[in-house]
């Protein structure tokens, strides 16, 4: 956890600061994407970067997601540390061959000889009224693929520390940013720090139930914990921060301690990240659990545009609160 009296940044600022610091530190770091330069991305996350580092290192691309991702794989193998920016997580569909059949496997297939130190930054999260092709949270796919690492920051502090580690990692790392969280403010110290990949964070300590939440759902879980506290239930909120490598131990220990767990993730509810997290806990804490591990994900439907429909598809503090209350045997 960050020290108490520090500067506040938005999530977007934290992301940019991480990239800027790493670009200053290492001349081989560069970034590719659609409208990343002058426009600073449509989300304005990278505003100012091209002014400092120039168009040689902050590179606007054509709308060729497969093309520039593949190019980044080759660049990573030959001396650069490219970051590719995929505007909406929904567009990773176009990069799957380059990420999964190439980036993820190069190191292994070459018997450990070539490395692919690249980062793909992309977004997840619904409720932006963007429709079914601009709202998905597809991180479960990459989490399924050996050879990739997958990062899901939930605070400005984590975003910065994890992204710096991702950029320095010698493997392909996919970094998912919740687009609804870009304006979230939080403490980010001025001094440099790194957060290692594969270490979960206890966002709130509790004793009655474990809420294991990722990315956008961490704030939801924290809000639910507040509601639970009002009725005397003490919830522990755990953020795995990376789905791979996965800090199984922290998840299991928490569930063993509280004897109840809910896992919450914004991906589609079926065959998603919640299934793995729940399985890890169910297996690891089996003899300590008072009830089944409950999974909460996005409704298993394409994400609808209409506000009342879209809002109904994603877990909220209230729905988490209700499920937790029931699991704790309160009516």
């Amino acid at each position, binding site marked *: 956890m960050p020290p108490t009296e520090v500067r506040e940044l938005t999530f977007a600022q934290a992301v940019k600061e991480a990239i800027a610091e790493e670009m200053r530190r290492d001349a081989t770091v560069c970034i590719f994407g659609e409208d990343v330069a002058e426009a600073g991305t449509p989300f304005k996350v990278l505003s100012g970067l091209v002014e400092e580092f120039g168009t040689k290192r902050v590179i606007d691309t054509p709308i060729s997601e497969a093309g520039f991702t593949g190019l980044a794989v080759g660049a990573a193998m030959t001396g650069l540390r490219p970051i590719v920016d995929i505007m909406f997580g929904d567009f990773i569909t176009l990069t799957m061959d380059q990420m999964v059949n190439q980036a993820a496997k190069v190191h292994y297939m070459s018997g450990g000889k070539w490395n692919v130190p690249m980062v793909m930054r992309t977004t997840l999260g619904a409720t932006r009224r963007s429709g079914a*092709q601009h709202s998905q949270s597809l991180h479960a796919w990459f989490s399924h693929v050996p050879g990739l690492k997958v990062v899901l920051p939930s605070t400005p502090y984590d975003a910065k520390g994890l992204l710096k580690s991702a950029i320095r990692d010698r493997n392909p790392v996919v970094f998912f940013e919740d687009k609804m969280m870009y304006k979230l403010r939080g403490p980010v110290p001025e001094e440099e720090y790194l957060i290692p990949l594969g270490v979960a964070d206890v966002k709130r300590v509790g004793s009655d139930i474990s809420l294991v939440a990722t990315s956008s759902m961490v704030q939801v879980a924290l809000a639910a914990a507040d509601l639970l506290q009002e009725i005397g239930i003490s919830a522990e909120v755990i953020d795995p921060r990376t789905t791979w490598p996965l800090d199984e131990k922290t998840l299991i220990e928490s569930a063993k301690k509280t004897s109840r767990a809910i896992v919450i993730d914004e991906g589609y509810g079926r065959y998603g990240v919640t299934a793995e997290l729940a399985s890890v806990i169910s297996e690891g804490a089996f003899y300590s659990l008072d009830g089944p591990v409950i999974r909460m994900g996005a409704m298993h439907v394409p994400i609808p545009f209409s506000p009342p429909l879209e809002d109904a598809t994603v877990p909220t503090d209230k729905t988490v609160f209700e499920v937790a209350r029931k699991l704790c045997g309160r009516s």
Partner: protein
Amino acid sequence: MTATTGTSKIHPALDTKLLLHMYHQMASIRAFEEQVNELYTHALMPGLAHSYAGQEAVAVGICAALTRDDYITSTHRGHGHCLAKGASLDRMFAELLGKEAGYCKGKGGSMHIADPDTGNLGANAIVGGSLGIATGAAFSSKYLDLGRVAVCFFGDGALAQGLLYEELNLAELWKLPVLYICENNLYTEYTHYSETTAGDILHRATAFGVHAESVNGQNVREVYAVASRLVERARKGGGPAFLLCETYRYGGHHVGDINRTYYRSKQEEHLWLTERDPILNFAGQLIAEQVTDAAGLQEIESSVKAEMAKAVEFALNAPYPSPEKAEEDVYAAN
């Protein structure tokens, strides 16, 4: 395999009814987009929208050359295509507002208007995402001998998607009745197309043996003329064609893109708005050629205004779907 660069100056003597129909449609699309902007700035519309204002002559000229049964696919900037193919204003607005009465029951939104009744296979929020769908519709038409043509609208940005070249190859190999309509409005979001597009656009089609032409996308009669010719050619089994339409979007990439000077100049915008406006210029021609007079056009404008007001009111008053509806329509019943 031919490439006709340079706009051919064809102004066939179109009949009055068609000319006024096209004028009405263009005026209607312009007014629709102005209304959308109003809804956005008054926070009455969820999300964002991409205005077609400035490009009206393309959608209207192309769709005027189609029958109702012919297919189209559209893009994120799709209102104009949908309206030109025959969509009704009230259900369009309702969809943009996420209402149950919308074309997609509110599930689609601005970027996903679809309508089997008018052959609209759907707008698409993935750049280049409908290239396969349109090509497949043309495949069906040929396989089932339906005589329909499929039209795929896309922007200059989609020229960078590899899928385009896979589909051009398939369409030419199988001589499918599909038209690829590239609307070059000079920008992909915030970047000039010349920064993202190497080589020559028409050659990218002719290299695959696909017939390609370009046209002044601000002149609805020219667009209509070349489209009629290419549609006819496709219907007769002549195979696919590629049409590059030179055009311009007046507004930002989306309704929220207000400060644009970092990627394009005010002078440029001014030039297109004043000298190349497809509606203004068409109006001038219609009057000069005595197809109608100022009063006649004024009448059209008034009726467009009235239609628009009625449609928006309908949409604003229409109910939202109830939340349970989110779980319907995931799978078609067998």
